[in-house]
């Protein structure tokens, strides 16, 4: 038990790295994911296919494999500038999470009834108006809870970076666990508490939003 309070500094430092990774990767994957989702609903077949392929391939690939690619395989592709562990983790997490963001946004847009947009066009709204006034306001409500879930998963996924040189929360726990082998369980329980500090509140927010915006169609 003491091992947690004794090493509080290390925990907090790791927690901050985890938070940074999560926030930066969330922003980057949100941007890329929105682009992918836009491509996915675009009228141009090739763009739809590109986006669909990316999403399908990434969703069925382990995150560890994405890290593995960037760390070990990419340097063999040619003379690429070397990148540090933190950037590697950020890149892998963003590329990976973007596919899940795209999928959540796409299913949100598709969940809006076809009749809604048809009715909007029938009363003479333009494409932009239809999107702005009718489709998106409804889509956003359905998208937000799954999107929060995507970011909860992202928070947990940042732990994979511990296997590739980043000393975030999990990496800190691993180090402390090896040094204080006798108190291994307490060290890791400490790590768990810090993860739950992020994931449980986010989960509660997702649930609350879901109940709040729930509406019958």
């Amino acid at each position, binding site marked *: 038990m003491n091992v947690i309070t004794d090493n509080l500094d290390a925990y907090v430092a790791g927690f901050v790295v985890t938070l940074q990774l999560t926030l930066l990767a969330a922003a980057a994957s949100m941007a890329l994911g929105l682009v992918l989702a836009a491509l996915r609903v675009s*009228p*141009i*077949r*090739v763009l739809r296919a*590109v986006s669909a392929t990316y999403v399908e391939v990434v969703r*069925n*690939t*382990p*995150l*560890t*494999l994405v890290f*593995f690619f960037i760390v*070990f*395989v990419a*340097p*063999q*592709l*040619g*003379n690429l500038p070397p990148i540090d562990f933190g950037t590697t983790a950020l890149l892998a997490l963003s590329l990976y*999470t973007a596919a*899940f963001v795209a*999928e*959540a946004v796409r*299913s949100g*847009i*598709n*969940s809006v009834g*076809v009749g809604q947009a048809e009715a909007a066009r029938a009363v003479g709204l333009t*494409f932009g108006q*239809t*999107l702005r006034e009718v*489709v998106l306001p409804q889509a956003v409500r*359905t998208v937000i*809870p*799954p999107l929060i*879930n*995507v*970011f*909860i*998963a992202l928070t*947990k*996924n940042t732990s*994979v970076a*511990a*296997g590739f040189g980043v000393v975030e929360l*999990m990496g800190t726990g*691993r180090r402390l*666990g*090896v040094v204080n*082998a006798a108190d*291994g*369980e307490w060290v*890791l329980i400490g*790590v*768990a508490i810090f*993860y*739950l500090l992020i*994931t*449980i509140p986010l*989960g509660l927010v997702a649930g609350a939003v879901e109940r709040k915006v729930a509406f019958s169609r």
Partner: protein
Amino acid sequence: MTSVLYDAPGPVARRREHLGSLVGAGLLLVLLAAGVWWGAREGLFAADRWDVLYDPPKNQTAADVWQSMVIRGLGATLRAAAVAAPLALVLGLALAVWRTTRHAVVRAPAVVVIELFRGLPVLLMMFFGLLALGLDAFQAVVFGLVVYNMAIIAEILRAGLASLPKGQTEAAYAIGLSRSQTLFTILLPQAVRTMLPSLIAQLVVLLKDSSLGFIVGYPELLKSMQNNAQFFGNRYFIALFLVGAGVYLVINLTLSWVARWISRRSARSGGTADDAALNEVQIAQNAPGGRPL
């Protein structure tokens, strides 16, 4: 294409889309060509980057390489998944049943277990097995996969039970079934059926997460890629990676496709189109957030 956003295109719009598709395809080809040109310049297509797969150096045969990748590497990955999946299903079912008990006090431990393990990284639980419980690498991988996935499966089944119409329970009570008879003969079979696509999607997640064994020192597929590359030379990483990634994609895409096929089929027989849409949303949600990342 059916979309919320557009009407069925007329002749002008179709011509425009056609043009756009051509331009898009052209751009894509240019990008691909640039990639191939870069690759050729860096010598990526030379035989000495690929011969590890058919005629490896250092007096090894191709059979040795493939054996270490497919039999030992993939074999270890599948073994961990094959042990963890049934355990997670059984324990998940048990937790889901436990969670339906009437008294809040009895129910509380199940709720705590589910909420706790859903919110923690799988890797953390593998390290817990390794560092705190003193398990070996294989047991630690299985432990992590089981503990995490049983919580998710319990949650999937709970959602399945919640989605059933109230009349099912009422009718079962009306014909005199007890609470447990109602649960096991009326509600659970339907919940499992509705949630089958989500459950299969969760198996994909479990298989993907078995690759975390690479980090805790379990010699699975990624490790065998790395071992081969270290033995034969780093220049072979690309060839070996493509084999490993291909294996994961083939297995997972097949499973995902089965999940979608089941959800379409159950939508056609009995259910409605809304069920299929619901399932797809649930697959999407369970995958990442409840998590399938």
